[in-house]
């Protein structure tokens, strides 16, 4: 009661001095800036970094509407409107890139995404702490090696000239398979590599969610006669449901983000038709062949779809009652 009166009278008192208070506010701000002087100095390198290496390239995206000529430079190059986009949309590689990117992304989602969840559930059921810890240490290992190492190991093991997989096939009386040059093996290999490298590491986030489950829930379920399978389905799984949903949405937002390094390292002349994706196409045509404006247009198209997916994914997250990512 008294609080309300006090606030009302306070506002009434301030009204006539509106102009004064604006000046006072500005003075307060200036004083605050002077107080925080060092904070602004500290910001300089970071802000410069974002402006030069993040926002300057965003402005450079305008190159997609120009014909870039290296000797004239960015500003002098002539505007050409949507020429590069028209060229890209009518190019046969447009359909190819779209199909490849989409199929590999969908395969990753269908075959890679569930693996860490299943492995985390299995690890969670283990009671022998030492065994569990050693298993975890081992399955995290591949995550720390570069894609060059992973691709290198794949090459060494799958080559037809002395690779152990083909030696085994030959030893069993089969015909050697040229996995590395095969169109039908490219996509399965990409997904298998992904699982081998990242699935173990991916369990961490689910294990963290699982460690928060109240043990008394299991007790209660057991008293009600639930066996271990039913405990897993009705206690454990619901506990990590929101983690699964959030990660699935994040994954959908980055759906087209396949990782340049992995695909590029596994591509060769024989599997390009099933393996070429937007990023590798941009690299080979932009950096290697110097078609800067054209590939900027391709990149802009790709980034625009990516942005759309992220915004859409975030909307879905909010509808599911999750916090959303931004």
């Amino acid at each position: 009661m008294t609080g309300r009166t006090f606030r009302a009278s306070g506002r009434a008192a301030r009204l006539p001095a509106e102009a004064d208070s604006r000046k006072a506010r500005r003075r307060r701000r200036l004083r605050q800036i002077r107080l925080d002087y060092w904070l602004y100095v500290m910001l300089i390198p970071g802000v410069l970094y974002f402006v030069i290496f993040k926002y300057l390239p965003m402005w450079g995206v305008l190159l997609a509407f120009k014909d870039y000529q290296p000797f004239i430079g960015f500003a002098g190059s002539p505007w050409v409107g949507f020429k590069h986009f028209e060229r890209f949309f009518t190019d046969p590689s447009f359909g190819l890139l779209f199909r490849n990117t989409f199929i590999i992304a969908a395969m990753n989602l269908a075959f890679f995404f569930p693996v860490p969840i299943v492995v985390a559930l299995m690890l969670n059921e283990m009671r022998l702490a030492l065994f569990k810890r050693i298993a975890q240490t081992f399955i995290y290992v591949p995550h720390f090696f570069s894609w060059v190492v992973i691709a290198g190991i794949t090459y060494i093991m799958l080559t037809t000239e002395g690779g152990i997989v083909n030696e085994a096939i030959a030893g069993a009386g089969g015909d050697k398979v040229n996995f590395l040059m095969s169109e039908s093996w490219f996509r399965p290999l990409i997904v298998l590599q992904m699982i081998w490298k990242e699935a173990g590491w991916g369990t961490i986030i689910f294990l963290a969610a699982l460690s928060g489950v109240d043990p008394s829930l299991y007790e209660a379920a057991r008293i009600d006669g639930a066996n271990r399978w039913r405990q897993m389905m009705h206690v454990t799984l619901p506990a990590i449901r929101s983690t699964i949903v959030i990660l699935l949405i994040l994954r959908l937002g980055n759906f087209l983000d396949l990782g340049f390094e992995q695909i590029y390292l596994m591509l060769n002349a024989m599997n390009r038709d099933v393996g070429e994706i937007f990023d590798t196409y941009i690299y080979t045509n932009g950096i290697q062949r110097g078609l800067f404006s054209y590939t900027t247009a391709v990149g802009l198209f790709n980034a625009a779809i990516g942005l759309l997916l992220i915004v859409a994914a975030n909307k879905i997250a909010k509808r599911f009652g999750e916090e959303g990512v931004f």
Partner: protein
Amino acid sequence: MVQDRSWGSRLFSLVNYTVVGLLALIAIIPFVHLIAASLTTAQELREQTFLLFPTVLSLDSYRYILSTDTIVRSMGVTIFITVAGTSINIAMTTLMAYPLARRTLIAREQLLLMVLFTMMFNGGMIPTFLVVKELGLLNSYWALLLPGAISAFNLIVMKNFFQQLPDGLEESAKIDGANDLIILIRLVIPLSMPAIATFSLFYAVSHWNSFLAPILYINDSDKWPVQILMRQIIILSQGGVGDSEEMAPDFVVPPEQTLKAAVIVFSNLPILIVYPFLQKYFAKGILLGSVKG
């Protein structure tokens, strides 16, 4: 906890332990095989394709790949990039995260928005390449150090970490006459050492493994980091390291498979040595990001 000793439960455990055990083996057997293959003689590798523990040890493949300084020089480049790059990352990230964690900062919201937007949209490979080129950084190590100096994600996580520190500390230090830079260096950073150590690990691993940046920006083979060299030798089978002229006259050059295995093992020695000790910090560190603020 009451143990469930029913038949079904035991069978479940048996299957579970077996499958997880197999997965763990699948994860490391290729590495064990590579190490074994790199340490043995050509003859033993021929007789035993699935070699895991060599009976005859031989360092010939290492002696051969180290007979020229190609791989050692590349390792030197990678070590330099990792150390310098991580230092730059930590300095830049900390310096920017701290002001952003302070609520009195004017335009704080706008600055955060500027950072967040780069996580959703970026200029892409070609415009970034052209900026680096226009700055004259092509073919210089700066091109590997500067364009990734701050990871927006790590910046936000570090900012959130700083926000959890108690407010009173800064107030009292300020009354004692310390400015914000001194507060950051003497007070905030020592309190945040566990977090900073974790960020250093992640940044360091990403520098060591970086492949895209060097193939974009470095043409000069003298300046190649070890990832590029590995690709040349193992995947493209070009530009092998090692010089048979340097070896003793009766030296037999080991087969290609053994040499490639040796190159992978040697190039990743630092990770192989360090991993067992740091593994638990990585696993803890990844969860720093899940604290939302």
